[in-house]
């Protein structure tokens, strides 16, 4: 792709999200835009209905006093109403901001005030209670709209209304002000703020990253980097829409591709929902890919002897094909034929069991992943590509090219953008994807974007062909007491490849040696204990059993053998509590937060070093 000039970021000739949305709603009319499961039946929403409801949300908000550039916050799990509100708000020239449903009332208060939110959308009673608890401290808040009013029939409050009622207000406003909506669509300019995305600060409070229409359209324009999607292709939406990656994949990209977005019923039903939907493109964070792999690995251990043999035979053939692909060679005809047989007999069933048999493309990002895991998916015949980026560059900065794969790297710069490594080793990005800055925070903005270069905070390397390798987060690099620099995430990724380890945090800054805290995978470790008749009652007692300690010790030794001597982990402890997304130790994408973990488990950590 040629280097684009600043003014040429358009999709279907449209230069803002409202115009693009209007365009595709007209074009696609009665074709299916999304599906939601209602009482066990998938119900379709057409693009026309999508457009109508978004319009009525937008006009309803205007009728209630929404002004251009006002901020609207949405606190709900993925659902059609989220999208109506998102596009409806954008269409009338205002700004949307997502809030994680796992956030506490206190966090909600901070974000609502920092963003100056005037309209707040709450999924249900539970989220409503959070905003009600803190609204006294949010003077600029005008209205709270509830998507699902179940259980609230007896509840009357001046400031609270149902989503249905808001649509009614919008319909009335449209009747009284014909043509108003058309004019509002024209309000936004390409470089205007479109959405706010709050990034969970591991240090300090969250910051609102400002993304413009141009940022987003620029990324939409690259939506086919993994697989070219067509109308009628299915996607499954289940990662939080507050995250830029899911927002791009499930809300923005379909504006261009026309793929149908299916909403998972809940996070617990994702495995079943994937099988039902059989998505054409599947984007997930490493944790999800790890879980799929663990499930298959465990099932194979329980399989019959011949079943296991067949699996290993087929996987070995797949792995040879993958090696060829990675090397950029075309496999010999014999091997290709053999793979077809292996796929037909075995691999296709494995893919079916995960619901990925129709996936033409798969992508992983938002966190580091073990290269072996990518290789495993490639051996199954799934075109799995690693991507890298952050909120501040609207999601995607680099991606693995289809025809040239270097495992362990995150691919090359997205076309139309530049990547550079600073003298300090930091990865810098430049291009139309670089954000407008942090909301009301010029100081942080100036620290982050210098001369048009976005400072990612990631340390990495770039080879002569432009492949970027991420070493770690700049602030995560461990300098041991011996002065040795260690990049914890590389070790942690190796550890997480074990089906028994859900996540791990390596510790050792200013310490004599490295240690780590391990969060075990409850399901697989419980099964391990049960198979070996290791008695345990609850999670903590499971962690404390000698056998589990030995199991994890063995997994750590396995990783240690691949590391340099100074980098080996000498001690470890298990986190004896089941952590959920509500816990501050975890990010909403279920990654352990290093800073919090270091603080919260200080006693445990100190004890490890004290006894040495």
């Amino acid at each position, binding site marked *: 792709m040629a280097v684009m000039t600043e003014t040429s970021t358009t999709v279907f000739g449209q230069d803002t999200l409202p115009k693009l949305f209007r365009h595709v709603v007209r074009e696609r009319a009665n074709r299916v835009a999304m599906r939601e499961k209602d009482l066990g039946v998938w119900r379709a929403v057409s693009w026309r209905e999508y457009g109508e409801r978004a319009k009525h949300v937008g006009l309803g908000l205007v009728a209630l006093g929404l002004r251009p550039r006002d901020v609207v916050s949405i606190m709900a799990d993925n659902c059609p109403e989220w999208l109506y509100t998102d596009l409806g708000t954008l269409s009338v020239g205002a700004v949307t901001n997502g809030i994680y449903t796992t956030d506490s009332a206190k966090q909600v208060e901070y974000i609502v005030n920092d963003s100056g939110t005037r309209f707040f959308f709450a999924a249900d009673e539970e989220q409503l209670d959070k905003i009600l608890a803190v609204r006294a401290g949010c003077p600029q808040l005008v209205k709270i709209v509830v998507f699902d009013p179940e259980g609230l029939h007896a*509840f009357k409050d001046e400031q609270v209304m149902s989503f249905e009622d808001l649509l009614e207000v919008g319909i009335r406003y449209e009747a009284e002000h014909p043509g108003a909506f058309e004019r509002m669509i024209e309000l936004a300019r390409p470089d205007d703020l479109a959405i706010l995305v709050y990034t969970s600060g591991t240090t300090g409070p969250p910051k609102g990253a400002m993304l413009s229409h141009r940022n987003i359209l620029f990324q939409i324009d690259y939506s086919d980097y993994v697989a070219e999607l067509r109308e009628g292709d299915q996607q499954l939406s289940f990662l939080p829409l507050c995250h830029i990656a899911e927002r791009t994949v499930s809300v923005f990209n379909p504006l261009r591709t026309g793929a149908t977005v299916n909403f998972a019923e809940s996070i617990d039903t994702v495995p079943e929902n994937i099988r039902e939907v059989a998505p054409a493109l599947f984007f997930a964070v490493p944790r999800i890919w790890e879980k799929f792999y663990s499930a298959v690995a465990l099932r194979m251990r329980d399989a019959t002897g011949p079943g296991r043999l067949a699996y290993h035979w087929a996987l070995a053939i797949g792995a040879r094909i993958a090696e060829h692909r990675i090397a950029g060679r075309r496999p010999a005809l014999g091997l290709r034929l053999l793979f077809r047989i292996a796929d037909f007999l075995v691999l296709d069933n494995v893919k079916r069991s995960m619901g990925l048999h129709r996936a033409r493309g798969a992508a992983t990002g938002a966190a580091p992943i073990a290269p072996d895991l990518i290789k495993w998916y490639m051996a199954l015949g799934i075109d799995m590509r690693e991507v890298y980026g952050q909120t501040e560059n609207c999601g995607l900065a680099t991606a693995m090219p289809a025809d040239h794969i270097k495992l362990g790297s995150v691919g090359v710069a997205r076309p139309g953008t530049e990547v550079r490594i600073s003298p300090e080793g930091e990865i810098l990005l430049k291009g139309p994807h670089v954000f407008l800055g942090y909301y009301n925070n010029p100081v942080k903005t100036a620290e982050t974007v210098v001369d048009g270069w976005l400072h990612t905070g990631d340390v990495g390397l770039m080879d002569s062909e432009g492949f970027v390798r991420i070493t770690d987060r700049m602030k995560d690099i461990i300098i041991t007491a011996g002065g040795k620099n260690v990049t914890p995430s590389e070790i942690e990724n190796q550890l997480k490849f074990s089906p028994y380890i859900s996540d791990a945090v390596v510790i050792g800054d200013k310490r004599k040696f490295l240690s780590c805290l391990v969060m075990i995978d409850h399901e697989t470790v*419980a099964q391990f*204990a049960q198979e070996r*008749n*290791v008695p345990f*009652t*609850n999670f903590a007692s499971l962690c404390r059993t000698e056998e589990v300690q030995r199991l994890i010790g063995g997994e750590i030794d396995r990783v240690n053998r691949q590391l340099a001597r100074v980098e080996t982990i000498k001690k470890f402890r298990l986190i004896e509590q*089941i952590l959920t997304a509500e816990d501050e130790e975890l990010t909403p994408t279920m990654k352990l937060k290093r800073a919090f973990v270091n603080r919260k488990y200080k006693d445990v950590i100190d004890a490890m070093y004290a006894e040495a």
Partner: protein
Amino acid sequence: MAETLLAVSNLETYYGPIMAIRGVSFDVPERAVVTILGANGAGKSTILKTVSGVMDPQKGTVTFAGREIQGMDPDKVTRLGISHVPEGREVFPFLSVRENLMMGAFTRTDAGGVAEDLELVYSYFPILRSRAEQRAGSLSGGEQQMLAISRALMARPRMMLLDEPSLGLSPRLVKEIFEIITRINRERGITVLLVEQNANMALHIADYGYVLEVGRIVMDDTCARLLEKEDIKEFYLGMKESGVRGTRRWKRKKTWR
């Protein structure tokens, strides 16, 4: 704590293809009252049935007084000293109360001891004496529960397995039954494993408790401490903060800590 009388380890029990108990381990110390709490279908009754030999486990061991008893026939288990009071009483409706009680002593040959114990259960439940010749089927629910417990006592057990003794009883009767259970434990030194949905009652009379959810133990602690846990309060005792609106329908996520 006292010696472990019953030790259950890695128990797995199936109903056909359905795994009802998914790897459960727990201990019951001698002379203790231990309770297992859980919702419908959590697998509480299945545990008791597996211990008493009514069901055979697929896996795992049940050790009673140092002897492995899993898979043993129920009558043998009874002879070893475990009496099971099943859910729903299960008295013999067409036999008299006295005959029912004598059925409980079927394992015994010491006529003198049996007569002594008959007096004993009549002293615990005087109403049974006055109804001794009546058919058991004509008793009220509460009286049937008393009969079922008494019948189990007639085997002079070391340990009693009680499956929801409060089921379908009035609050006053529930209180009475639980008082007797406490007395049986204290006065006779009988170890009790109690399965209950009435968590409030169970936690107040038991020493130690396990919480079972879909076939797995998610929490265990002394009952005094369990009563203080947020999850126990909200999900088992029906106590919750009413929230900003004064009413709250949604449930917190259980964390079991």
